């Protein structure tokens, strides 16, 4: 029996929404990206009985869309500084997210996608490699470059 769109929504949307909320601090952006991810999931006609594959697809698609949104936002308006939201939460993920927002306009999209998977979602390097369809060696190289960028950004903030 084919799944109805309502059933698929009930089953998958809460996780998609959580994933998007973890990446995007703006609630409207997060909801938009979650909806777009869900719509793509429905229309992609994946085998929904393969939960691991669906999860990887959701991570890849939601991250890709969120990075697109962040980069567009970063080009259109000045992103708030790292220190501006420091009082909101001491959660390390929030700080990391803010750093990534600041880097959004200047680093390649694929590197930013990996950054979210590794630093926000907490994926292992093999998982990130699987989701992004790249080798673990490439993941390690990109993360090393990301660390350099973050260190440089932090030193700028201190100055």
């Amino acid at each position, binding site marked *: 029996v084919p799944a109805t769109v309502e059933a698929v929504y009930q*089953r998958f949307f809460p996780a998609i929404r959580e994933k998007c909320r973890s990446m995007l601090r703006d609630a409207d952006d997060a909801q938009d990206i979650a909806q777009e991810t869900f719509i793509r999931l429905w229309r992609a006609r994946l085998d929904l*009985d393969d939960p691991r594959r669906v999860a990887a697809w959701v991570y890849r698609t939601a991250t890709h869309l969120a990075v697109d949104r962040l980069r567009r936002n970063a080009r259109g308006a000045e992103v708030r500084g790292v220190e501006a939201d420091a009082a909101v939460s001491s959660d390390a993920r929030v700080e990391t997210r803010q750093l990534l927002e600041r880097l959004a306009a200047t680093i390649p999209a694929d590197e930013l996608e990996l950054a979210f998977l590794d630093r926000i979602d907490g994926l292992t390097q093999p998982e990130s490699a699987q989701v992004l369809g790249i080798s673990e060696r490439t993941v390690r190289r990109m993360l090393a470059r990301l660390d350099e960028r973050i260190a440089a950004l932090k030193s700028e903030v201190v100055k």
Partner: protein
Amino acid sequence: LQLDALAFGAQDEATAAHAATCPECTAHLNAVKVQLPVPTWVQGVDVPRRGQLWRLAFAVAAMATVAVIGFVVPGRVPAGPPAVTPKGTPEVQVWVNRSGHAAVWDGVTPLHPGDMVRFDIASGGYSHLTVAELADGQLATVLHSAPVATREASPAWRVDDVGTREEIAVLLSNGPLSEEEVRAALKSRGAIWTKQWLFPKEK
């Protein structure tokens, strides 16, 4: 990722056992297993549509005449890759129609929202054409699947304003392909001819 796969129904005893004793994982599972009321926009999702980022531009019948006149009439084909190829060697040209001006895509120029894109196919003896939208190299949606003549123009798709790139694959085979066969062909071509394009987009 493992937690979400678990929430989606994966059989994973190790992750389930860990989650049962980890407050953070338990909280995440609780958050993603909530029963949400189904909002009205979900109903609109269930409308068949061929493509996510790309929109089938016009009814195929209405466009067929334009396609023949605008894209494949001999003598109107400008310089570009050879339009006629030896039998057994498929060739595909990408045509972009911007504001009424059609030209072979140069492989570099970003697409704009509103551009119309189609593929001019020399099938090289294959009998079936599949056009698919990809996401990071993986199949996202089959946009078009139909028998193909020796020389044929695909339907046209209108570029929308979502995202910064489009990934499209053209597959030629000797019969219709299931989605699994498309996925397999994208990984390892075998008897199926495939070609992929990554189109940059700008607003």
